[in-house]
């Protein structure tokens, strides 16, 4: 019975449901939300990566690395490689072994209309009045906590360690651990004549 139902459903052709643009009047009915309050906690390969699985003895770890928090093994982090040259004969600028955890709380996102203020503490003309427009205000979090975030700046001859002829020269390692304090807002708005 279930087989028949399934087969019938496989032949069911649903209505084509393409996206269509909203007309102007419909768009004007859309009202914006008040704002967003964000907190984040991002961990990158803190204890190794998905390729570092040593639990199955019959399928040993592909990267053969020790990826505890204190390990500086090169195969344990994320990797970004960029080639700004002509591709064939040029090498790669690399951020290697990217790992760690950083978290923040209290980043806000909202729109704001500015038509006053920004007047050099009362000593000049008001930029806000001259600007008279809307901005996207990103409130910066008061504190960002970095927990053993580290990466290595390096150069390599090929994009990936698995490529033939791969050779990498490490330049320096960066390690960040602790809190960073910030205050203030980042304001974004369009410029020019769109």
């Amino acid at each position, binding site marked *: 019975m279930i087989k028949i139902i399934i087969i019938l459903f496989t032949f069911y052709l649903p209505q084509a449901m393409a996206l269509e643009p909203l007309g102007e009047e419909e768009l004007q009915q859309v009202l914006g939300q008040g704002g967003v309050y964000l907190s984040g906690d991002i961990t990158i390969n803190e204890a190794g990566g998905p390729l570092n699985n040593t639990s199955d003895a019959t399928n040993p770890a592909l990267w053969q690395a020790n990826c505890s928090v204190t390990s500086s093994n090169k195969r344990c982090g994320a990797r970004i490689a960029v080639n700004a040259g002509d591709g064939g004969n040029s090498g790669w600028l690399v951020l290697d072994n990217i790992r760690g955890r950083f978290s923040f709380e209290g980043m806000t996102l909202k729109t704001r209309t500015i038509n006053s203020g920004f007047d050099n503490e009362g000593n000049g003309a008001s930029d806000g009045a001259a600007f008279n427009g809307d901005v996207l205000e990103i409130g910066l979090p008061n504190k960002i906590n970095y927990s053993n975030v580290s990466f290595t700046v390096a150069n390599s001859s090929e994009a990936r360690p*698995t490529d033939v002829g791969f*050779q990498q020269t490490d330049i320096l390692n960066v390690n960040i651990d602790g809190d960073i304090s910030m205050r203030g807002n980042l304001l974004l708005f369009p410029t020019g004549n769109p």
Partner: protein
Amino acid sequence: MLNTFSRTILLFCLSSLSQAQLVPIDERELSNTTGQAFINIDRSSSASQNLDFTKLTFGLDVKTSLNADLLELGKYDVAGEAAGSADIKISDFALGHIDENGTLVPFEISDPFIELAFEDVGGKQNLAGVRLGFGGALGKLSGNIEYLTGNIDVGIRGVGRSIYDKAGFFQDILLAAAGVRNNSILSAGAELVDKDTGLSDRFRAQYVGMTNGQNLSCDQNCGALSFLLDLDFTSSQGCGVLGIDTCFPLTNFKSLDIGDNGNKSEGLFLSFQTKNIAWVDGNTSTPTSRGAFMNIPNGGITVNFDQAFNGTPRARTKYVDPYFGGN
């Protein structure tokens, strides 16, 4: 729940299986990572001067051709020096040149470094000096050198004929008596001097030449009496020897060849210090004085006598060069 048929259909409808099978790296590939980099930081001490040095060296090879209207460092009034003078003032400064085929010949610098000198005064680390130096330098340095503070050792080496051309009749007799022939190879050392006294003057100098007591020496094809050149009365006094000028204005040398016979020479640096400091490069110690200082090392510049007397012409440094009529 789902029988085989249903599962089969389900599987077909799901996205295709990944074809990107992971392949393990073997040890050989993993080992192709080197840890050395192009920055070195060194720390050393000089107990005799009570100074600690921190040196940041960059493993860089630089090739450049550049022009500047003015390079002026340390401009302040000092008693005993001309008003408006500066420790170092070079106008129409250029590194590198263009040869007669229109090929740009760059000035080459290797392994530049920044070094800081600290003095321990009552437990406090006072910054006493900073210098920007080059592990090696090779190429043409051009400019009108109006004032120079520092050390510039010029080796003058050339044939006796050039001196005969400059000398008067009486001087010719003296030179002949000293065993100097037209094809004799003579040499002398020149440094920054005070033109009026012939004394060494490293501070805001405008002349380079033989200091008092320096002698010409005959290196090849010399007559038996050439030892006479080493005597006191044939030494340079007050910028002259045997009546021949031995000091030359720095502005005469419009282009200098830095380097040692086509190889990079070490020890070229520009420094700034609050007191006398002897900067150390390997086994060489270069004493410097308060203020800005430029060191052009031994073997750094070699000229022949013609160039010493008449100056060296300015090499072409631009494709549209006002020194060459705007072309």
